[in-house]
């Protein structure tokens, strides 16, 4: 009996009041919790992709775009074009929208008879079929419009809303405003809207809906499970109180530290519902069992015995779970680190409250009147005995089957896919996915990557460099098209030379009447035809105080990306970066950035973070169990079922096409943190019975019928806790729910089937060695 337990029993009311006071203080912080749906927030700020994107946004304005697409069989008719004409102005009036690019505002650069003119492609909407025909021809001839603002088959047109980065934009407000604007224009035509602000606001709404369902339904499920198990108010209320308090403390800490809810951190309350009641359950079960067996008739003596005998196993189970969860601190993704820290704190809170609040409450509460009438569950005992005999008798076969299963699963792992695209958070056929797919098909995607070129942008050599990069990008199948100032310069040059297509090039030094006119001065002259607003999203302008000329010191090349997987984006990122590295210095040409490149970087971090946190958790668990049993062999025996479970889980995911994503990459650390408890409980009690003089077979049966029950009940309560995730609106969380249930099941089988077979077969020294002063 430790000093803390003595204090708890001496001051039970104080302990309860203190727990409640901390709980209400933490509760008062909860309303301040915020939600963060930005994919950028998933990556550390100091990563090049994020730094470059922040720089990009500050130089060229927001990299966020919203695409509104109108689809109709007869879009190019006078009526339809007139109907949608006001949309351009209405959308540009939406707060946060810098400008709108559409067919209605598109410019046409043309030349002839020594005159260069930049006019609207469509000054007025044609009324006659001939007018419509000539408009379609003009669209087809315009590189800036065809397949960019108007689809290839003329069945759809797009309005690109460029958002400003200077003001803090509220995604939901922008989305609602855009939807309000387009609402009257729907039917019979179809209108789709997509873009990262739409995705982000949907993510926030889904997170809020999930939180609203997870917590209440999770608690309700737990109440029912505890009621059926303990058949007593005390057995339900006390573990439940610990769960609720640990959730409040954890979320309170989250709010105090300013950590925002992400798609990953909505897992925290569910994890605590599933895991935090375990320690309380063990204490109540032991306390009731002592009364049922009439070992004690007096409350305080029973509490002393219960806490005395459970202190160590609960401490060990808690520490190993915390260690497993804290291994997520080694992950690369900040939300994963936050999850590790907060879930670890939650479990620490739960096991501290289980050892303080529950004994204090037990001392004050009345003993349930029926408690002495309980009995043993013989049928369950017989089942466990049969289970133990089977796995001990067929130990070699069982282990051989397990090894074959693990090898088969391992062979499937290389086909495991990684996906971090936020659009894939949603089910196929959902509005957000359909909208993105339609826009992608018609206009080459609502996502883009950027490369920034530094130097004198008006210098033809710099423009040629940009042209080479653009050509390289366009040669990639996943890039639908590129946009840069080079396109404008070439079009202007062509128009300047009376629309002669031979001049659709970057101007070179030219000798006229013996005078050399530099390419740079020609470019500078051509660019004067453009308004600042036409180029401000493509170049960074700076006033040269010596010449009072506007210089272009930086330019970006935008690559529009088709809908491809984030793993393909990662491959594309690496290919483009390699190209840049081998041809230019990073001072003159930046590495790839942009919203799409963030997804690629995230994919890389998910894969590397998964491996790192898995390695850390296995090593930490190995060390902790080695220390507990004072044997490295014990460490290996503990890691064995977990390692097998990890391989089976990845094989299971690969077989069923479940991707590794920001949510499922948390899986192994949680699996190891929770699953190690079963192994420790089994080995701890098995060793005890062997040292009490039982042989290996007997000790297995005894362990299964005593601690085996607790392990099974514990595992089922964890699985039921995680079942609630299957109602999530996010596909990654939905699949996470399934996979975590499968993995906990695998850990259970590992601890109660494979481990008994293994220890009986191999008779490890840390269990069977002679103990000083006894057997």
């Amino acid at each position: 009996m430790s000093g803390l337990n003595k204090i708890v029993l001496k001051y039970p009311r104080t302990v309860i009041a203190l727990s409640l006071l901390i709980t209400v203080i933490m509760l008062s912080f909860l309303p301040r919790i915020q939600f963060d749906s930005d994919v950028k927030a998933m990556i550390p700020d100091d990563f090049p992709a994020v730094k470059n994107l922040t720089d990009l946004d500050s130089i060229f304005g927001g990299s966020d775009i919203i695409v509104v697409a109108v689809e109709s069989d007869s879009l190019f008719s006078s009526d339809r074009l007139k109907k949608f004409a006001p949309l351009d102005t209405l959308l540009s009036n939406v707060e946060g929208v810098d400008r709108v690019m559409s067919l209605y505002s598109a410019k046409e650069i043309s030349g002839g008879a020594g005159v260069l003119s930049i006019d609207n492609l469509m000054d007025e909407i044609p009324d006659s079929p001939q007018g419509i025909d000539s408009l379609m021809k003009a669209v087809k001839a315009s590189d800036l419009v065809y397949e960019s603002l108007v689809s290839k088959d003329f069945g759809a047109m797009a309005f690109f809303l460029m958002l400003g980065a200077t003001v803090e934009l509220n995604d939901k407000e922008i989305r609602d405003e855009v939807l309000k604007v387009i609402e009257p224009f729907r039917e019979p035509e179809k209108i789709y809207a997509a873009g990262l602000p739409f995705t982000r606001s949907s993510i926030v709404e889904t997170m809020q809906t999930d939180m609203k369902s997870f917590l209440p339904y999770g608690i309700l499920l737990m109440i029912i499970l505890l009621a059926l198990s303990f058949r007593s108010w005390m057995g339900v209320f006390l573990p439940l109180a610990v769960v609720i308090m640990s959730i409040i403390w954890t979320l309170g800490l989250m709010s105090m530290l300013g950590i925002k809810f992400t798609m990953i951190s909505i897992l925290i309350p569910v994890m605590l519902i599933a895991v935090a009641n375990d320690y309380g359950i063990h204490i109540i079960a032991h306390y009731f069992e002592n009364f049922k067996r009439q070992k004690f008739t007096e409350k305080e003596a029973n509490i002393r015995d219960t806490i005395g005998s459970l202190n160590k196993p609960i401490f060990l189970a808690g520490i190993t779970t915390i260690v497993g969860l804290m291994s997520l601190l080694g992950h690369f993704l900040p939300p994963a680190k936050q999850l590790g820290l907060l879930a670890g704190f939650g479990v620490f809170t739960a096991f501290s409250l289980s050892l303080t609040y529950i004994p204090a409450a037990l001392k004050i509460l009345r003993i349930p009147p029926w408690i002495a009438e309980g009995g043993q569950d013989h049928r369950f005992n017989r089942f466990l005995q049969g289970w133990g005999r089977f796995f001990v008798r067929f130990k070699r076969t069982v282990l051989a089957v397990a090894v074959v299963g693990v090898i088969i699963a391992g062979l499937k792992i290389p086909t495991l896919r990684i996906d971090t695209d936020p659009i894939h958070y949603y089910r196929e056929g959902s509005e957000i996915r359909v909208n993105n797919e339609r826009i992608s098909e018609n206009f080459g995607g609502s996502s883009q990557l950027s490369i920034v070129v530094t130097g004198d942008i008006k210098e033809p050599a710099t423009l040629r460099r940009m042209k080479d990069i653009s050509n390289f990008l366009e040669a990639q199948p996943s890039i639908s098209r590129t946009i840069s100032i080079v396109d404008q310069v070439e079009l202007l040059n062509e128009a300047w030379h009376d629309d002669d297509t031979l001049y659709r090039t970057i101007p070179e030094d030219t000798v006229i009447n013996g005078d050399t006119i530099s390419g740079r001065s020609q470019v500078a002259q051509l660019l004067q035809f453009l308004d600042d607003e036409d180029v401000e999203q493509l170049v960074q302008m700076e006033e040269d105080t010596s010449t009072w000329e506007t210089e272009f010191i930086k330019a970006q090349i935008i690559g529009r990306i088709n809908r491809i997987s984030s793993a393909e984006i990662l491959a594309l990122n690496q290919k483009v970066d390699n190209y840049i590295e081998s041809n230019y210095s990073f001072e003159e040409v930046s590495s790839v950035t942009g919203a799409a490149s963030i997804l690629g970087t995230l994919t890389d971090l998910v894969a590397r973070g998964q491996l790192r946190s898995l390695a850390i958790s296995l090593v930490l668990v190995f060390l902790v169990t080695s220390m507990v049993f004072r044997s490295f062999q014990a460490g290996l025996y503990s890691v064995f079922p977990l390692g097998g479970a990890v391989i089976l889980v990845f094989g299971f995911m690969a077989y069923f096409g479940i991707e590794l994503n920001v949510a499922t990459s948390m899986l192994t650390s949680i699996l190891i943190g929770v699953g190690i408890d079963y192994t420790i409980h089994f080995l701890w009690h098995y060793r005890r019975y062997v040292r009490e003089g039982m042989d290996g077979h007997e000790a297995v049966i005894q362990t299964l019928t005593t601690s085996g029950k607790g392990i099974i009940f514990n595992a089922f309560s964890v699985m039921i806790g995680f079942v609630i995730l299957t109602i999530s609106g996010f596909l990654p969380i939905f699949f996470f729910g399934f996979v975590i249930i499968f993995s906990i099941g695998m850990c259970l089988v590992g601890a109660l089937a494979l481990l008994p077979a293994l220890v009986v077969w191999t008779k490890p020294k840390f269990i069977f060695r002679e103990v000083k002063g006894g057997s």
Partner: protein
Amino acid sequence: MDLSRLKSDRDYLFASILGTAAVIIVIIMIWNGLTWLWSWFSTAGDNGSVWLAIWDFCKANLSILIVIYGLISLQASGLAELKFGKNFLKAFGLALILTPPIMMAVYGHRKKKKNSKEGT
């Protein structure tokens, strides 16, 4: 609050101090909640029926209302178990299905019947 016990029992004294602080914070939170509810209630009916707004509010927060109902049922069945010595699981089932007051009424009625039988 038992003042004489405050002097003699340190556990009771500490718990009273901490408990009072907790109660004050809870009162403040309830007050804030009621203020929010009042402002919501006063604007809820602006665009239509107040009852419709309440119905929408309940629909939007159905999961929370269900768990509150579950918790009330749990506490009521705890009372039935510890005070009237009833089977907790039966009491909990009855409270969930028939609502907690009806469950308590059923048990109260049975208790009265039992007492009157014992009396005769």
